């Protein structure tokens, strides 16, 4: 492992842009890894929490980051952003965990109860948001996953396409159809 640049100080690392952080991480820079982890954690946790209970979501994020570390040297900026790669791994981990969770019906019911009592309901008291969430919950799983990658993980259509292994154009069309279905669900509520 060769170090091709002068290592930044710890307080400088957090100000680096993503490609520099990834390059340092690939060289084994521990501080770069910490910054990457803290940076990625909120998005990964938000996405995982949409499908899994809190403990399983934490496990899924930990497993995802372990896989990221193990495979960081295989990552290359070839039309795939780091976040696409990250969420591409996460969705596989979440899918596996979700299947395991689905086998435990009692656990699944508890997860539903937790989500129904999410802090957002109490904090926002937003009837409109609750309607959107209800309508969203009735969408097909594939629609929900795509829209979660867009609005929860914050990925662009291109990044979602890379994470799902699809073309950006087909993701845009799928998103449009998913939103159309969501719109119909909302109209049905009115």
């Amino acid at each position: 492992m060769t170090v091709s640049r002068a290592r930044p100080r710890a307080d400088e690392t957090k100000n680096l842009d993503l490609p520099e952080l990834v390059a340092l991480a690939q060289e084994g820079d521990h501080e770069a890894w910490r910054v990457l982890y803290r940076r990625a954690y909120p998005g990964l946790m938000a996405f995982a929490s949409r499908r899994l209970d809190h403990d399983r979501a934490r496990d899924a994020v930990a497993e995802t980051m372990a896989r990221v570390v193990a495979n960081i040297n295989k990552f290359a900026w070839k039309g795939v952003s780091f976040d696409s790669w990250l969420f591409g791994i996460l969705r596989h981990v979440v899918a596996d965990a979700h299947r395991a969770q689905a086998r435990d019906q009692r656990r699944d019911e508890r997860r539903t109860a937790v989500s129904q009592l999410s802090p957002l309901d109490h904090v926002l008291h937003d009837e409109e948001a609750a309607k959107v969430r209800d309508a969203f919950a009735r969408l097909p799983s594939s629609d929900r996953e795509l829209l979660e990658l867009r609005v929860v993980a914050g990925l662009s259509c291109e990044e979602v396409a890379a994470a799902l292994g699809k073309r950006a154009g087909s993701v845009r069309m799928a998103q449009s159809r998913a939103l159309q279905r969501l719109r119909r669900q909302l109209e049905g509520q009115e």
Partner: protein
Amino acid sequence: MNYGDGQLLDDLRVALATPPARPDPIELAAFDRIVAEWRQRPAPVADEPKGRFRAIEKVHRPRVVAAGVVITTLGLGTGVAAAAGAPVTRGIREVAHEIGLPVESPAVVDAKDAMSRLRDALARSDDAQLRAARDQLRSELGDLGASDRASLERRVDDLLQQADARLIRDSSGPAPAPTADPTAAGPQHSARSPGGTPTGDTSSGPGEHGSIGAGDGAPHHDDTEPSSSTDTNGSRDGHSRDFQGDGAGSGAGIGPPPTTVTGHHEPSVDDSHGRGRDSRDATTTTTAGE
């Protein structure tokens, strides 16, 4: 509620928003350990094959290399020998035949030699030599496998019938007793029985091509033509074509056996024409499969 995709996405973003999560110290410590362990890992090996081929190659690499060496050696050996006009040694022939190279088995070569000697004897008027050649051929046939036997059956049957007929006609005493030789009860007679069918073993041999029927009823002398001419009737190899002819002539009983044999000539070296192609296919498949 009627608005565009962008507005709907924004509403969805708000509706699905959660307070930003942060890793707790335990998670951070666990992640630090993962990174530390990763940093201490051995350097990755370059040029590893990817995907499922990695496992396949690791398991089979020694065998592939060994097979490549053997095939190259034998191929060069047989090729050089053929180019130099020298006969392929029995040892090389045995190994080459075993691994599927386009070389006839030693037993087939021996049988063909015996057939040539019997033809020579038929052309002369020496009954003792003819009897010895006939018995030798029957002995060699006993060493053949079912598929090899099937490939030679018709030609052998004709030769033996001619030899028997000549010996009966010329002999003042009783007819020779072919059953005295244990190999005399070989397939050549059973296959010639009227309306009979070839031995069951032939179904697994090259005779499977016989169902095409291109060679059915083909004149017997076709059997001795060079392999290149056999391709015109659609048969993939000379052996299967031979069997087609046999099946029509002996099994189905179409046409009488020829009464004279002239100009017969067995290919002296590996007339492995078509079989070679099949064998090469098999070799290639095996190698690729590994």
